[in-house]
């Protein structure tokens, strides 16, 4: 069988009915486009989050107040014991597996310098924050343990805050007001950009002791703990649970979250989203397939005479079968190609308009798209092609 000839005939036939062929492909175009979009957004999300977690420093654990239990069951809010600086200190002293620890209190605040001011996020933390969270200073210094313990009013500011308040001047040594309290700028953070909805550049850092006073708080928002390595993660979780439960009168009223847990949650989420969108995609591929079948039946009818001629000069059943099958596959693959192009375009457009939604068109998505459109072409092309192949040559030749 001459596949080049069969392909040529199929392409000719599609070109002879350009508008009709284009409209027929639309269902597949939309189906494949949504497959590409959903897969590339899902893949992009996953890659993005993995990157962020890696950037935050792996082997990181978060302790947050309150028990989040997947088993459900309500709890009264006021029974939650706060996480305190003493809790943090206890973990630091007693756990062998935890090598770094940062207490955190987060609140909103206005930072002022002379006539300029900026509303920003104020993070109260301690001396190990940089090391635990894999962050670096651009200049100056971070606060030390004695600064935290002595409630020294010093602040380390992010790049955006520095640009807004100081422009091109150096902020080091300058005096600023954080929520009306006077602080001295001792350091400037290296630019880190946004991740997980946090803009680390639009933030200021003060000693956690000062932050608790400033926000009139007694409890921490969270404690970040760093394990020495991957194998120490589980022992670290066990340590933290044991130490805090004892301190909290035997109740586990806090939650230890590892990055693996967070990644798991995100993966489950994207997995669900993928399934939903795959459902939508399959429906449009089904509709597209029916459209192709419909138009192929019309095409067989229109070309009854041609089929008669081909049979008269010696075409066997399978010659006719493959010719029409090739045509439906070609229409479907054309739709697949258009859908792939469109999907890629939209994916890039989404990424450039909204950088928070990263997309990534993978080889897997491309082969999935072409696989789908090929399967649709074959599946919905078989019935019309068989009908064409089974035509009686005499009746076909007489067909008007």
């Amino acid at each position, binding site marked *: *069988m*001459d596949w*080049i*000839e069969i392909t040529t005939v199929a392409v*000719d*036939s599609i070109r*002879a009915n350009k508008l009709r062929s284009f409209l027929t492909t639309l269902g597949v175009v939309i189906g494949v486009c949504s497959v590409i979009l959903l897969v590339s957004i899902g893949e992009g999300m996953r890659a993005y989050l993995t990157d962020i977690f890696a950037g935050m420093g792996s082997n990181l654990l978060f302790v947050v107040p309150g028990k989040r239990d997947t088993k459900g069951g309500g709890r009264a809010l006021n029974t939650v014991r706060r996480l305190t600086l003493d809790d943090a200190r206890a973990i630091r002293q007693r756990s062998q597996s935890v090598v770094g620890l940062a207490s955190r209190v987060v609140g909103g605040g206005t930072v002022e310098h002379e006539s300029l001011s900026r509303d920003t996020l104020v993070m109260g933390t301690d001396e190990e924050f940089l090391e635990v969270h894999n962050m670096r200073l651009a200049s100056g210094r971070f606060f030390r343990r004695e600064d935290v313990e002595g409630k020294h009013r010093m602040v380390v500011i992010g790049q955006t805050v520095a640009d807004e308040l100081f422009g091109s001047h150096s902020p080091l040594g300058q005096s600023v007001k954080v929520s009306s309290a006077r602080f001295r700028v001792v350091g400037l953070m290296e630019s880190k950009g946004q991740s997980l909805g946090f803009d680390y550049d639009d933030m200021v850092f003060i000693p956690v002791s000062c932050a608790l006073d400033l926000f009139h708080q007694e409890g921490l928002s969270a404690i970040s703990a760093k394990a020495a390595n991957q194998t120490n993660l589980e022992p670290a979780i066990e340590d933290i649970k044991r130490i805090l439960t004892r301190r909290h009168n035997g109740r586990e009223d806090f939650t230890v979250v590892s990055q693996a847990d967070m990644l798991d949650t995100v993966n489950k989420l994207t997995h669900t989203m993928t399934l939903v969108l795959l459902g939508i995609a399959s429906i449009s591929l089904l509709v597209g397939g029916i459209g192709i079948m419909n138009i192929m039946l019309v095409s067989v009818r229109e070309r009854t*005479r*041609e089929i*008669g*001629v*081909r*049979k*008269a*000069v*010696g*075409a*066997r*059943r399978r*010659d006719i079968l493959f010719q029409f099958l090739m045509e439906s596959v070609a229409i479907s693959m054309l739709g697949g190609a258009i859908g792939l192009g469109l999907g890629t375009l939209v994916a890039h457009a989404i990424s450039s308009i909204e950088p928070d939604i990263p997309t990534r068109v993978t080889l897997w998505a491309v082969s999935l798209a072409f696989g789908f459109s090929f399967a649709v072409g074959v599946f919905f092309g078989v019935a019309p092609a068989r009908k064409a192949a089974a035509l009686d*040559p*005499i009746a076909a*030749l007489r067909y008007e």
Partner: protein
Amino acid sequence: MIEIEDVTKVYHMGSSEVHALRGVSLDVNKSDYLAIVGPSGSGKSTLMNIIGCLDTPTSGTYRLDGQTVSSLGDDALASIRNRKIGFVFQTFNLLPRQTALENVALPLLYAGIGRRERRRLANEALERVELGDRAQHKPTELSGGQRQRVAIARALVNQPSILLADEPTGNLDQKVGGEIINLFERLNRSEGVTLVLVTHDHQIASAAHRQVEIIDGRIVSDRSR
């Protein structure tokens, strides 16, 4: 070459039976020029379909080049049509989107002949009907007579045993029709092509060397000139 023995063909139209052929026997030799004539509904189209291996008889035997073809399946018949029979139709039946050359090459495609060889043979066949210069034209760019000559080239391209023509001049005016008949005459005399012509037109039939008249499913006369 063609040996038809006591062939009948019965069609079932609902509950009634139509006897299209009621026992036809006919021998055609190599390089014969035969016309089958008869009024419409006489069974001549049915006979032509059977000779052309488009249809099989209800009873009786048909041997073509010594091979019994009356009991073959669809694909085997397709293969015989491809190798041994060239069809010329009243309405030309060219594929409108393909060039003259591609139309002529069509039987070679199904014979499994390679691309380059197909082009060469199709060009040769077009030369034989004096249309070598129209190879790249589409059927719509050709006159009626030229289209029928393309169809004849297509019928000849596989070197068939028989050229089977069904009312080949029916859609042409008298002058162009005459040219087609002259072409048949030439192909038969100088190249020894076996011709079976089906027509209701006695004037066209008179050009053939042998006339077989069929009425009501039976051969009523068989005259050689």
